[in-house]
């Protein structure tokens, strides 16, 4: 019996030493960060330097972050959600997981960033944008003697048979942006006709949005449909990757930022939010080798970054295609008409 006592007491003691509720004291802000990890750490360090507020930064993909926000909704542990593609931010706004906030910095932003804010009822704001395009492996294409794709129409050519990868829209926001883009400039039925034809050239519908461009980098596939800034990152890592944007026009994502509803450190969260919209904060992306287009008009843009002015952009309706109902409808149509086709 003595040993039972001792044993249980040991367990109790161990439990006690581990008991410590997370900090919510003054001078802290808990940030969920959905951009690349270098960017996250850089932003945390710089904000801490600029404001004296300690940043507790947790890096997670945007899908994981919204799942976490939803799970924590009753008792939120995060304060700000920084970065990640716009759709989940819009969805979080729709599900009332985030807080409306009107930053004094809104005036300095590009119109597309402000529109994101008004579309969501003030609950999210654009911090960067990235255009959709193609990434391709120069060595593989050269070996096959195929010219790099420049237009959506090129992708249907027979020489690309089994060479193209795109993500599965069920799991990837990137793929959904691609479908929404096609629907917007072709019309819905034509867009699905196009996707069915494209199916013959696709070798896999990857699970994650960045999967296809990594496959291009490793020479596992010739071409991917990806955000072009991701292609630039691979190229800088030393892989034979180049990017191009479609001649017919293309869509884009708006990387966003939101304040968590019921944040424990609301004042600090707002300070971080304002800071993240300044040019000083926004140029950290380029420092971390991420080449999205920053949302503050005065942020200097590095030469490697794809320029929005050189890309033919469509007038992407974030508000309409960011709604969960519309997304569910388009994805299930894709599932029924494209995803279920036999393997080419």
């Amino acid at each position: 019996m003595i040993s039972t006592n001792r044993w249980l007491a040991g367990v109790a003691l161990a439990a006690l030493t581990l008991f410590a509720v997370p900090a919510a004291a003054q001078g802290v802000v808990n940030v969920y960060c959905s951009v690349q990890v270098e960017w996250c750490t850089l932003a945390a360090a710089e904000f801490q330097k600029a404001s004296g507020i300690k940043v507790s930064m947790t890096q997670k993909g945007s899908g994981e972050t919204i799942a976490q926000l939803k799970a924590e909704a009753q008792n939120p542990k995060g304060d700000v959600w920084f970065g990640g593609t716009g759709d989940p931010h819009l969805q979080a706004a729709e599900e009332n997981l985030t807080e409306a906030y009107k930053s004094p910095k809104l005036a300095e932003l590009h119109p597309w960033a402000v529109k994101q804010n008004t579309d969501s009822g003030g609950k999210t704001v654009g911090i960067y944008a990235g255009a959709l395009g193609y990434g391709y492996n120069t060595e593989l294409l050269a070996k096959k003697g195929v010219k790099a794709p420049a237009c959506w129409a090129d992708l249907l050519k027979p020489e690309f048979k089994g060479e193209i990868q795109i993500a599965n829209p069920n799991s990837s926001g990137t793929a959904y942006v691609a479908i929404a883009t096609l629907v917007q400039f072709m019309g819905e039925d034509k867009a699905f006709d196009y996707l069915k034809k494209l199916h013959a050239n696709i070798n896999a519908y990857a699970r994650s949005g960045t999967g296809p461009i990594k496959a291009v980098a490793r020479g596992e596939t010739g071409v991917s449909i990806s955000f072009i800034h991701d292609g630039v990152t691979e190229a800088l890592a030393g892989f034979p990757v180049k990017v191009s944007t479609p001649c017919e026009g293309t869509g884009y994502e708006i990387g966003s930022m939101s304040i968590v509803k019921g944040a424990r450190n609301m004042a600090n969260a707002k300070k971080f939010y304002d800071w993240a919209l300044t040019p000083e904060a926004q140029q950290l992306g380029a420092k971390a080798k991420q080449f999205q287009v920053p949302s503050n008009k005065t942020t200097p843009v590095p030469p490697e970054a794809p320029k929005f002015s050189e890309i033919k952009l469509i007038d992407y309706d974030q508000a309409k295609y960011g709604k969960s109902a519309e997304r569910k409808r388009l994805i299930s149509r894709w599932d029924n008409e494209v995803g279920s086709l036999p393997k080419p």
Partner: protein
Amino acid sequence: MSRAALSWSIAGLLAAVLLPWYGLEDGLGSGAWIAGLWSSEDAASGLAQSIFFGRWWLAPTLAASLGCLVVSLLPLAPARRGTGLLIAGGGGVVLFAAQAFAVGLRGWNAGWLLSLLGEMEQRQVGIGAGATIVLIALLSLVSIGLALRGAFGGDAFVAGAMTTVTASILLFTAWPILHILAQAFQDQDGALRPLLIVDRLAESKIWSLRCLAGSGGCGVVWNTLFLALCCGVGSTVLGLSFALIATRTSFGFKKILRVLTVLPIITPPFVIGLALILLFGRSGLVNQLLDWSFGVQPTRWIYGFPGVLLAQLFAFTPVAFLVLIGVVEGVSPTLEEASQTLRANRWDTFVTISLPLMRPGLANAFLVGFIESIADFGNPIVLGGNFGVLSTEIYFAVVGAQLDYGRAAALALLLLVLALGAFFLQRRIVGTRSYATISGKGDSGLATPLPDAARRVAHWIALPWAGFTLLLYGFILMGGLVKVWGRDYTPTLDHYAKAFSIEFSEGGVIWSGAAWNSFWTTVELAAIAAPITAALGLLAAWLMVRQRFAGRGALEFATMLSFAVPGTVIGVAYVFAFNVPPLEITGTALIIVLCFVFRNMTVGLRAGVAAMSQIDRSLDEASATLRGRAPQTLFYVVMPLLRPAIVGALVYGFVRAVTTVSAVVFLVTAEYDLATTYIILRVINGDYGLAIAYSCALIVLMLAVILLIQFLVGDRRLGRRALPVQGVRA
């Protein structure tokens, strides 16, 4: 036992008076709470809370604790004292749970309580030191009460162990998982609509059989099932081959073989998948070589079923090996000798005696391989291509564009049904036969060498696999030492320097490498979790094999729950269950440790059950009649005979804690970042060099830990004669 009841009663009451009832922002370390025990609303003790701060609902629990003290002090007959403790302690536990779940962060937790009792002014946060000790004391008193009434052979240790195991499994496995699975029957707003599950599961994506007709892919359920069957059988066959070679042959490189079989288990996730792609992918070494030498057009065969199966076999064969080696060692040589004297040659003996005796082990190994496969997420996500399985489907239901917990829960239920099926199948196969082969009778038989045919088969299966593993790991090792893996093979140490640089200044050592923070956190948490995992798993195994009690099957199944449910679901379940009072532990190290423990204890449990069913029950009984109390029997008799299983459970507990990723993604914080989540971010970033360098460092760390565990726990001495080196083939 009466003294124990008295001390627990006093401990509970002291905790109710001298420790803060609720959790504190900055823990107990600072000691600042002592001043506020009676005056501060945050730090007040349970008694002060109920008297001064209007939390009257705590009073009944405290009264029950007092009741226990009274029962312990009264001069009662043992059985009556037991009844008293059972009533007072059990009542206290029920009252504790009732108030904890009824009153939450915003007053009443349930609408009907609100309408019944009116608006509640007070609220409560998560429980702290005081409440925890009161609860533990009450549970201990219940078990002492049970023992006094003659339950569990009248042994308080067994009753206490039983209560500990049951309560912790209920709290940390059953509750969170059932909580989230219930969402399969709720709509987005949480309203109960049982028929929704039919909608959620009636999809062609799940059940389609088109692949049989050759037009398109099959449903994820069939994919999962087929993959798991192949993985279960494959890993069992491979594991058995390795176990036989390691124990029954004079193969010269057994040590290397053992290390090799352990390597994959200590490899962080994604690394094997990446290495396989770089070897067998379209631009991988093998395909390039074939293209260059024979002009074979490179294909993408690795993506899909073959690749996933290959990676899973790599990953789970070691688990099968660990389960099987103890079993193979445990087969009594005397029985094999008996068989040989009965005109059976070595082959007959092997097939008719040795293999059937290993049946519980084989069934266990298959079960583990099967369930690991259906719960595996890392390999299908990297290598699956268009080949979807349930775990990836669930992941994307949670984090993908759908964000549909209901669907995720419905799919998780489906996955559980598969696990359940495997579980019952295993029970049918093993049945109720006795396989006790370590008996109390000295057994000096000589382990029969494998028959030639079996040995050749084992060699033919295991050795190429071992060679293949070596090749793969050589390739991985190289990955951390070259500039860009798969592209630029210039040697460099940059990746290691970036992750693990150390600077020396006047103030001492500065751990300036990027990986140190997550590295030390991982080591610390895994080192805390591993012994608890092993102890709890083996304790549960001991209870299940040696004690007869109602609900044994239910308990066994509950332990399977956390093992069979994919990590992502566990992670979300833990956040749902433990982000709000009464147990508000998200963001702490505790929740990560608990997640490790309850997710990984199942393997220790299964290994323990397999090993223990080979130990004759009379050994336990002999110890009991020789004044060995249950804990002493456990320590002096059972544990020394279970050494292989203990090593297995400890190693597995540590290694899985270090390599788990999907379950902890939702639990890590800036303060408690883990190695695997750090590595995954690097992989997502395309920074393979650093990821691999870090992985290699982890592999070295885990190897060192395994050797340490092996050294500390030691081997089992059975006094059997050693197998002489086979000079000539007999």
